[in-house]
């Protein structure tokens, strides 16, 4: 198979995603499509760390929120254009990821998960308390990146971001980087013993993931035109990112898209019934997924196909096979 044929399906899919506003004119439907792509991008970003590298982060709201506040604060205090604010969001998120990685990657298993959760919570509380800078719980207005009535430019922007994020994982699956991350996920000690610099690759994965998350955070803030800590920095944001990727399929390229489609559409359908409790569906689907198909929708499909086809080395989901090295106390 030539490289071009290998790339044909992804390119066709990308073109189809970009063509949506030509067909969908209804503003409500377009907004739902924007939400699907916001969560696809976030799920894909989370997937790099949580899926491929197997580091279950529940603190990604930190990057999302930092992205949103970067745009909001630079516009509010310095009059920056939202585009410059967006660049700032990405620029700030990478060192933040390095700092968070330096702390949390020293923890293993459940302690890593709780550590990421704790750090993001601390950040939320600080933003909430630092009212002189952030206006705290009162929130802050955010300028639009595309002034005007049409939502189509927003759609094109987030579609490109989603394609970039999903494309990054597509490229990762075909690169040494992706194999290193998978090796770290499956057995970090063995990976290190054959010369994989686990600390560096995990940090690199987190920085890439954080950059996409912060970009989406800045976009989302501008799309919403208003943010406050509980919208962009709270635990449910982190949980939703993880759940999108997990239900679609951890460590699969298109898993986040499938997960985002399922979850966003389900919450829209049940919006009238559940109102503010729309995360009920996330909780229930997460439980069902873990109990009956821990690899997620695409992980399960891949698993079934692989049982039929001749075995071929794929960076895939081994989440159904249980015992990972998460023994008693693996700290430091």
């Amino acid at each position: 198979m030539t490289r071009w044929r290998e790339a044909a399906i992804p390119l066709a899919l990308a073109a189809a995603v970009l063509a949506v506003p030509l067909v969908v004119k209804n503003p409500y439907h377009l907004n739902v499509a924007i939400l699907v792509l916001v969560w696809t991008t976030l799920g894909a970003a989370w997937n790099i760390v949580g899926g491929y590298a197997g580091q279950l982060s529940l603190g990604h709201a930190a990057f999302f929120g930092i992205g949103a506040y970067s745009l909001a604060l630079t516009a509010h205090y310095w009059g920056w254009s939202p585009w410059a604010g967006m660049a700032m969001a990405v620029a700030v998120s990478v060192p933040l990821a390095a700092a968070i990685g330096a702390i949390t990657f020293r923890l293993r298993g459940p302690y890593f998960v709780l550590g990421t959760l704790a750090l993001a919570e601390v950040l939320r509380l600080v933003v909430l308390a630092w009212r002189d800078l952030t206006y705290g719980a009162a929130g802050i207005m955010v300028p639009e990146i595309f002034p005007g009535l049409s939502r189509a430019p927003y759609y094109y922007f987030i579609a490109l971001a989603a394609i970039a994020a999903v494309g990054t994982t597509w490229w990762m699956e075909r690169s040494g980087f992706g194999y290193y991350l998978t090796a770290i996920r499956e057995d970090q000690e063995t990976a290190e013993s054959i010369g994989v610099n686990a600390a560096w690759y995990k940090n690199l994965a987190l920085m890439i993931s954080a950059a996409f998350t912060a970009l989406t955070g800045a976009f989302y803030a501008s799309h919403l035109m208003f943010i406050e800590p509980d919208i962009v920095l709270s635990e449910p944001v982190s949980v939703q990112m993880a759940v999108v990727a997990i239900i679609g399929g951890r460590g699969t390229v298109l898993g986040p898209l499938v997960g985002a489609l399922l979850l966003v559409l389900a919450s829209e359908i049940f919006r009238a019934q559940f109102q503010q409790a729309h995360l009920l569906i996330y909780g229930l689907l997460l439980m069902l997924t873990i109990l009956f198909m821990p690899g997620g929708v695409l992980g399960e499909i891949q698993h079934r196909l692989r049982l039929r086809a001749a075995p071929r080395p794929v960076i895939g989901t081994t989440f159904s096979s249980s015992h990972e090295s998460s023994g008693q106390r693996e700290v430091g």
Partner: protein
Amino acid sequence: MEFLAQLPQNLVSGLLLGGMYALIGAGLALVFGVMDIVNMAHGAFIMVGMYTTFVLCTRLRLDPYLGLLVTAPLLFGVGMLLHRLLIERVAHASHMNQILLTLGLSVALVNLVQLIFTANYQQIRTSYSDAVIRLGSITMNVPYVISFALATGITLGLYYWLMHSEFGRALRATAQDPMAAQLMGVNVRRVQSVAFGLGMALAGAAGALLTPVYYLYPTVGANFGLKSFTMVVLGGMGSVVGAALGGVTLALAESVGQMLVGHELKDAIGFVVFLLVLLFKPAGLFGGQRA
């Protein structure tokens, strides 16, 4: 000077809250420390305990402290059922899948309660809600004092029971080595169900005791959930007594710390302590003896 003047009051408040934190920590220690199940729903269980007590108070006009006698056994039963239906299926799976399953359970419980009771803040009032005891310059809310006394009693009773009953021995044996315990004739599956049920009952009891002194809202458990891991880690894994002491320590650290960093950052203290302990003193402050 002002700091020193306020210190005694804050220490007493911290100690009173610490009684309830001890109960919360002990409950998670049973499930996470002893049974090695990473339970992300502990905070949600506390919240369920609070709302159960709230319903008993407002609908049946039951005193919140009498409600404890209903809430705790009820949550014990629900906990055993949850163990059989859900937790048991991932008990031998990776920690990650345990985390995700219990996280899903937590999200589902929080949103279910939000659906039923809305996200509004609620509160229960009793005839003694505003009563205070004065000791010199220190004032203590009567409900706080009752909650503290009951929480301490339950925690000590639990400890005594674990150390001196046949079931306590079976539970400690199962925690040390489930296989060996099974070979010695312990019904390991039953012990694990009971331990999980007990963990949920303790969370429910803590919730019941918090109801007279706290506001209720569906996400009230979120902070308690993460904090309860702090208590267990402070106490050294696998020690119920350690976690209880960890709870008291955390409550004291919070009430003294908030004098320095302000009320709004009070909750951050527990999370920072959590990270510091994990990074620099992973064996906890109170040794690692299992009990």
